[in-house]
C-alpha cells in the first residue's frame, strides 16, 4: 500500500476538519483507495508540528478542543511553515490558510513554496487562488505538479471536478449561481421570516453561518473571489478580482424582499459569468427557478452547448462539508502517485 506524506498548512476550522475526517475515514480510504494518508507536518503561523512517522492528530485535536495551543506537544518546532516545506520530505501539501483577499497572502507564499519544492498541492484558499491564479498555474505546470482547489469555490459542491470529469465535450457557455451561504441564509430569512437584514444577519452570526465581521460575505467579496476562480478554471478566462462588478446586499430592505415575494419572485445574491464578464449582485428570480434554494445552501447552474442546463446544489462552506472537496482532490493526486 502506498503511503502519501502530507504537509497540512493551517490548523484552523478547515485544517482541523481535515484532521478529523482523516482520523474518521483513514481505514475506509485504505480499503477503497489502497493508500495511507499520513500527515507528517502541520504548519501554523508561529511554528510547526513535525513528525516524519506521522503526527498524532488525535492529540493535536484534543488540545485545540480544550482551547490550548498545539505548541505544548513534543513535536512542536519553532520553524516557519515555509521552512517546514523546504526541509520535511513529503508528497503533497494541503493548504487551508485563510488569506487576505487583497494580497492573497500568506497563502500565495505557501503555495509557491510548496510547488517550488516539487510538492503536489491541494488548496481551499480562495483568496490566494483568486489573486494569483495564472502565476500559480504556470508554476504548477512548470513543476509538473498538481494544483487542485475544488474546495476554494463552492465548498462541498463539486464544480471544477464535475466539469473536468463529467462534462468532457460540452463548452460551458455561462455560469450563474449562489456562491455564498451566509447571504443566502439572510435573504431566505428576509423572504420567509419577514426579517430585516440586520436581524437576519445577527441570527446567521449566532448560528455560526456568518463571521463576527461579515463584510466579505455581505458586500459580495467572498462570492466574487469564487467567481474569479470558476471563470478561470472552468471557462479558461484570465480574470482578477478587480474584473468583477460587485454589488452587495446591504441596501436590500425587508419591504423590497416582500414586494418581490408578492409578485412571485425572490431576491438572491447571484454570481454571473458570461460573455467574458463577471458580476456579483442581487437579482430577482422567479420563485420556481432552480436557483431558488434556501437557508445557507449554494447552487450553480451551468449552461452548456450540449447538455444545456446543469444545476448542482450543495453546502458551500463548513469545516466538515468542505473536506469532501479537499479529500477528492487529495485522492485524485494519490491515484497519480500510485501509477
Amino acid at each position, binding site marked *: 500500500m502506498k503511503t502519501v506524506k502530507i504537509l497540512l498548512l493551517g490548523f484552523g476550522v478547515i485544517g482541523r476538519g481535515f484532521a478529523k475526517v482523516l482520523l474518521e475515514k483513514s481505514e475506509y480510504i485504505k480499503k477503497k483507495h489502497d493508500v495511507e494518508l499520513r500527515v507528517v507536518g502541520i504548519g501554523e503561523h508561529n511554528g510547526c508540528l513535525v513528525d516524519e512517522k506521522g503526527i498524532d492528530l488525535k492529540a493535536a485535536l484534543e488540545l485545540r478542543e480544550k482551547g490550548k495551543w498545539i505548541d505544548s506537544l513534543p513535536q512542536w518546532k519553532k520553524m516557519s511553515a515555509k521552512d517546514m516545506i523546504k526541509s520535511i520530505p513529503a508528497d503533497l501539501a494541503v493548504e487551508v490558510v485563510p488569506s487576505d483577499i487583497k494580497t492573497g497572502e500568506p497563502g500565495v507564499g505557501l503555495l509557491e513554496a510548496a510547488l517550488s519544492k516539487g510538492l503536489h498541492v491541494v488548496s481551499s484558499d480562495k483568496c490566494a487562488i483568486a489573486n494569483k491564479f495564472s502565476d500559480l498555474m504556470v508554476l504548477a505546470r512548470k513543476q509538473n505538479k498538481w494544483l487542485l482547489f475544488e474546495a476554494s469555490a463552492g465548498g462541498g459542491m463539486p464544480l471544477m471536478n464535475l466539469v473536468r470529469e463529467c462534462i468532457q465535450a460540452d463548452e460551458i457557455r455561462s455560469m*450563474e449561481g449562489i456562491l455564498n451561504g451566509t447571504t443566502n441564509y439572510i435573504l431566505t430569512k428576509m423572504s420567509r421570516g419577514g426579517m430585516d437584514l440586520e436581524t437576519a444577519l445577527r441570527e446567521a452570526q449566532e448560528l455560526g453561518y456568518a463571521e463576527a465581521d461579515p463584510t466579505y460575505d455581505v458586500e459580495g467579496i467572498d462570492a466574487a473571489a469564487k467567481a474569479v476562480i470558476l471563470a478561470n478554471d472552468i471557462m479558461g478566462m484570465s480574470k482578477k478580482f478587480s474584473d468583477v462588478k460587485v*454589488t452587495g446586499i446591504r*441596501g*436590500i*430592505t425587508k*419591504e*423590497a424582499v*416582500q*414586494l*418581490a415575494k*408578492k*409578485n*412571485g*419572485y425572490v*431576491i438572491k445574491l*447571484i454570481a*454571473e459569468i*458570461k*460573455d467574458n*464578464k463577471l*458580476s456579483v*449582485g*442581487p*437579482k*430577482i*428570480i*422567479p*420563485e*420556481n*427557478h*432552480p*436557483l431558488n434554494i434556501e437557508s445557507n445552501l449554494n447552487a450553480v447552474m451551468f449552461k452548456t452547448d450540449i447538455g444545456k442546463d446543469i444545476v448542482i446544489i450543495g453546502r458551500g462552506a463548513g469545516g466538515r462539508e468542505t473536506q469532501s472537496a479537499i479529500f477528492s482532490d487529495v485522492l485524485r493526486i494519490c491515484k497519480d502517485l500510485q501509477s
Partner: protein
Amino acid sequence: MEDCKIEIKLEDSPGALSHVLDIIAKNKGNLFSVSHIRERKKEGFVPVVIQFQAAKQDFQAIVADLEKAGIEINEKAIGGVEEAGLTQEFILIGHVIDTDIKDTIYSICDKDVMIKSLDISLKSLKDPSSVFAEIGAKNARAMATAMVKLEEIAKRKKLLLITGINNN
C-alpha cells in the same frame, strides 16, 4: 400563409388552453406547437408559446379575438418579425418617490418601451421605498436600450437596481 408565434399569459386551469386553441382554429390558424413555460409560472398564470400558420388578416383576427377574450399577449410575431413584446421585471430600492418617479419612468419609456405595471411599497416618507415594475419592449434591442437607461438613472439617483438574472 405566414409562420406565426404568440406568447400568452394563460390561467393554469382546465379548459383555458382549449379556449385559446378554439379561437385560433376558428380564425383558420393551422397549429404547429404549444409549449408551456412552467418555470415562469406566476400567480396562477403560465406563459404559453403557440406556433401556427395563418394569413396576415387571420393573424390579426386571432390577436383581436384573444384580447377580446381577456387573454394577455406577452409577445406576438408574424413571418419572424416581432410585433410587440418582451417583458422584464425589476426592483428599485431607495428614495424612488423623492427622486421623481415620474421622471424615472418617462426617461425609460419611448415609442417601443413602456412600463406595464408598477407596485410600490412605502414604509414611511423618511424611509427608502421599493418599487417592483414590469417593463415591456417591442423587441430585444429596445429592451436592452431601456435597461441601460434604467441602470444610468439608478446610478445617478443613487437607487439600488435589481434586475432579473439575464438582464446584464
